[in-house]
């Protein structure tokens, strides 16, 4: 298989011409998602896990829960930390090594969606204020890159959190003692990220790999169950007009609601 990321010019033109007519190479409409498949609880060692297939893009998320100290300015809140790895087996373009700017951006955008929507009530993760809290590690593992890693990762992260169980505990003499049984992690919102690619001045939802390789820029809009916006991220070296941005916001609200309905969130 080729290790290059260049889409041959003839195909570039083909993709762009179809989009100008409102169609895409795989037959989708401009605002259609690829098929979404979600599986939960696949990694028993993790406190929560999920695997999402978005078309051929595959992302796995594992949630691990540990105890730790809270941040000094939020002594009553648990800690949420999101990390992403673009592992080399997922794409000929991923190299082994520490997280690069793409995996850092991916993790931070997914984090923003979960955090700002207050999907998890962090105060419920407090064990002893100022001393001990639950730390929720959300680790995003991209297994196959066929475009739109952000939306797939955000879905997988949410699905994994919905699948997460915390061990029961009691505090004895300042020590956390584990009791038998589990409690579901309290998740109260379901943020969904919707990403657009701009190709020849048209916006397409859920770009696949080749569309991403020819796009001018990308825009991700994350909304919560009430249609409020909780994260926005423009990426890529192109630009958007304000009109395109506001158009994208409306489409994102609709698509997110559709996805929530489909997944029963």
């Amino acid at each position: 298989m080729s290790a290059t990321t260049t889409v041959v010019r003839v195909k570039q033109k083909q993709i762009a011409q179809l989009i100008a007519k409102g169609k895409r190479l795989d037959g989708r409409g401009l605002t259609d998602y690829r098929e979404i498949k979600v599986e939960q609880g696949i990694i028993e060692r993790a406190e929560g896990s999920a695997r999402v297939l978005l078309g051929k893009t595959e992302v796995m998320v594992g949630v691990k829960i540990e105890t730790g100290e809270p941040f000094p300015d939020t002594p009553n809140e648990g800690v949420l930390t999101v990390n992403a790895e673009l592992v080399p087996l997922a794409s000929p373009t991923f190299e082994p090594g520490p997280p690069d700017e793409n995996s850092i951006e991916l993790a931070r955008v997914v984090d923003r969606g979960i955090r700002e929507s207050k999907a998890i009530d962090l105060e419920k993760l407090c064990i002893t204020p100022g001393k001990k809290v639950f730390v929720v590690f959300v680790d995003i593992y991209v297994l196959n890159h066929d475009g739109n890693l952000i939306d797939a990762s955000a879905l997988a992260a949410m699905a994994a959190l919905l699948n997460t169980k915390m061990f029961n505990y009691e505090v004895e003499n300042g020590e956390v003692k584990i009791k038998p049984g589990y409690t579901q992690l309290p998740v109260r919102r379901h943020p969904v990220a919707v990403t657009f690619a701009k190709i020849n001045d048209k916006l397409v939802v859920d770009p696949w790999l080749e569309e991403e390789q020819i796009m001018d820029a990308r825009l991700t809009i994350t909304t919560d169950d009430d249609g409020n916006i909780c994260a926005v991220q423009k990426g890529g070296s192109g630009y958007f007009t304000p009109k395109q941005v506001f158009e994208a916001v409306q489409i994102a609200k609709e698509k997110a609601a559709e996805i929530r309905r489909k997944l029963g969130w």
Partner: protein
Amino acid sequence: MSQKVEKLIDKKGLRLDGRKPDELRPIKIEVGVLSNADGSAYIEQGKNKILAAVYGPKELHPKHLALPDRMVLRCRYHMAPFSVQERKSPAPSRREVELSKVIREALEPAVFVEYYPRTAVDVFIEVLQADGSTRCTSITAASLALADAGIPMRDLVAACSAGKVEDMIVLDLMDLEDKVGTADVPVAYMPNLGVITLLQMDGILTSEEFEKAVNLAIDGCKKIYAMQREALKAKYTSVKEVEE
């Protein structure tokens, strides 16, 4: 060492630093401040003190990183350890890595990268003192540094933030407003082409509030753009002082 802040906006509708909701912080700009860099600019915006320098275009080594048909734009956003309340480690944080990326993507649309294949242009941003919306101030400075370096550009890029603080949409957030407020929307804008090159948001806003914030930020960008032009004129007018 955190303060407990009661109100960010007082009864008269003024913010903690006396500003009206749609008012920018005081801005001071100087272009061409470093003798070694090919281009440079220094900006103070409220308590933000930010220095931007540009080196290039120059050949890119190792050669395999170069692009055959265009220039590579590289950007490093970095905060000095003494720039914030609690000393920040000099090692690049995840936030600095993300900001370096989005700042580069905010500047790239303005640069004629096709003109100089196989070369690189490095943009270095050092935040000497930080008080909120540093990525916006950085972009404003970096854009001037690029122009000062003689890099051909389509437009200058001006950047400004807006946000929601206690139910009001306000312009140009300072650090406290960003931390305690409910949303932060940084925007970078190319005023002649009327397009947005950086757009992020974190917080919670209805789509109407978001639209209001983006439009307010764009207004801020236009005002800052006028100041950028004045700063460039101030630097180069002395060149043509003695007129024909």
